[in-house]
């Protein structure tokens, strides 16, 4: 079978752009699950929440969705801090995070979804922004701006987070809490406070990713579930807690999904992430850039 070169190039570019967006979706999980060991399966629910906030403000005030998400960052930060506080008091301190902590996050995921369905119904919602329609063409390769803008902003987001984590005191403390809590305590830093900050940051990124999600395509409340397999597949494949690994894995998954969609049809795409996840777990559980 000969594959036309322009179709191939377009599939690769579409995959890379999609992968950039996946990086923004996953980076929060890389922090909470990869570094803090908090299995936040409700992460996609916060992403959808971000989408709906961007949608409401955009429809009523006409503000750019990414700008809305940036303004809403502190709100999501506080929400994340509150969720972590409950999680810590109710589960982590009692050492019950394995079974009940998971059930707790599952409950949160479920409540958010049902509450959104009750308020907004199951209709698809979308936003309006000047960059959603047009497409740049470079030779025979298409760069749809609605994909390109989220991709660029999310790569920026990951770079900023990586700089924060490696260059600031708090950031280094977050990296340290993943390795040795006791040693961190001896350095006079409170691990619970550090974890709360890190978890809050991870939820803040979910708010931003939510804005990207609704720019890329219409959103309805149950879309979040499709992302659970994806984000954990990327997180594990990239190597737990490694942000550069997350970006590489996200791009990889983006390309494979884009190829599947191009050559087999888009209805198969959700199955790809699962294959990735199982393959990674079976062959190399440490991931690409894992220690």
């Amino acid at each position: 079978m000969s594959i036309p070169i322009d179709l191939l190039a377009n599939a690769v570019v579409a995959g890379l752009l999609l992968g950039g967006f996946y990086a923004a979706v996953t980076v929060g999980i890389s922090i909470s699950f990869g570094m803090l060991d908090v299995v936040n399966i409700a992460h996609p629910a916060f992403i959808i929440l971000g989408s709906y906030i961007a949608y409401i403000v955009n429809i009523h005030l006409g503000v750019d969705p990414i700008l809305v998400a940036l303004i809403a960052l502190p709100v999501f930060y506080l929400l994340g801090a509150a969720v972590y506080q409950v999680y810590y008091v109710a589960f982590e301190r009692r050492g019950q995070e394995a079974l009940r902590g998971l059930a707790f996050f599952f409950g949160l995921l479920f409540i958010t979804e049902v509450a959104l369905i009750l308020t907004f119904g199951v209709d698809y919602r979308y936003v309006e922004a000047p960059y959603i329609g047009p497409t740049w063409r470079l030779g025979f390769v298409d760069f749809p701006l609605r994909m390109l803008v989220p991709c660029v902003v999310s790569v920026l987001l990951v770079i900023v987070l990586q700089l924060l984590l490696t260059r600031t005191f708090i950031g280094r403390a977050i990296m340290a809490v993943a390795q040795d809590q006791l040693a961190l305590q001896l350095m006079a830093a409170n691990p619970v406070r550090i974890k709360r900050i890190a978890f809050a940051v991870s939820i803040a990124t979910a708010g931003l990713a939510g804005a990207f999600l609704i720019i890329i395509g219409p959103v309805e409340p149950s879309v979040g579930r499709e992302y659970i397999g994806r984000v954990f597949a990327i997180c594990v494949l990239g190597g737990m807690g490694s942000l550069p690994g997350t970006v590489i894995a996200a791009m990889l998954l983006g390309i494979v999904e884009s190829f599947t969609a191009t050559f087999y049809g888009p209805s198969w795409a959700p199955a790809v992430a699962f294959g990735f996840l199982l393959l990674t777990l079976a062959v190399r559980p440490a991931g690409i850039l894992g220690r």
Partner: protein
Amino acid sequence: MRSWSFFLLALAVGLSFFVLCMVVRNDYLFFAGYVVLQFIVLATAWNILGGYCGYVNFGSAAFFALGAYTAIALHKLGASPDRYLPAALADLARLVLPPPIPVLMLLGGIISGVVGLGMGYLTLRLRGVFFAIATLAMAVVLQTLMINWDFVGGSRGAYVIRPASVSILGFSLGYIEYLFLVMLMLAVAVLTVARLIERSRLGYGFATIRDDELAAEAAGVPTLRLKLVATTISGAFMGMAGAPLPYYLGYVEPGAAFGLQYAVNSIAMPMIGGTTTWAGPLIGAILLGSLQQIATVTISSAVNLLIVGVLLVAFVIIAPAGIVGLVQGWRRRWGAPA
């Protein structure tokens, strides 16, 4: 109490409940009761892995739907065997397909059990969370598979026309009563198995995994093998609960078979009832199941799911040991000499 006498007692309670429903002669009672019984099976099956071993399965809906789709596939095959099978096999198929519900249940159970075994083998060697995440993802993938599989209806769904009545041992029974009875038997069976496991060597092995897997491994408990056994049993019962679904609903599409309510309820019911004994999921399923049946009729089906979610979160935070744990706590407090 010995397991046999427990089984007979459970059977007697179940049958007298059935007779009571027959005396009342209200069809709605059977339709609602079937759903509650189905949740008893799902919750108890979930608890065999989740409560006894401490491994969370978010994919109950997937195992359940596998059972339902096994039934649909066999039903379709039985409806027009010539189209899909060579002539020699077609005659045989016409003879045995579609099989009676108990056989369908068994087949659905086998398929779900095998899938559970495979999933477990790939992910149970790692930390527990990976298993939980993989089950979550598996539900999405199996749904994708069913949406793309035209033979079982794809995303359009499949119709199954159920007979009006069935005759057992000379008695003629309405079909919904028959389904109710079959599900009742399954519920009795799963409760007996759960109780048997709880008091056997197997159950103690499971408990060591839940309490401290590393220590159990060090003490010579074959943890991987035990986890695989638990996953297979649990998956098989979920599949068995799903097999009669097409006959109950009459029409099945992927969204209905993989509905989130199955995954959520099968976690919420044991968590609310209490995860360490067979009575927990039973209590949870009866309470939550009836509550939902009432809420669906009086309020709306979306609100009743919200109630389940809120109850789940409230219970895991406030009463981690569930209703059984609360009762045990009270008994200890009141029963202790002052």
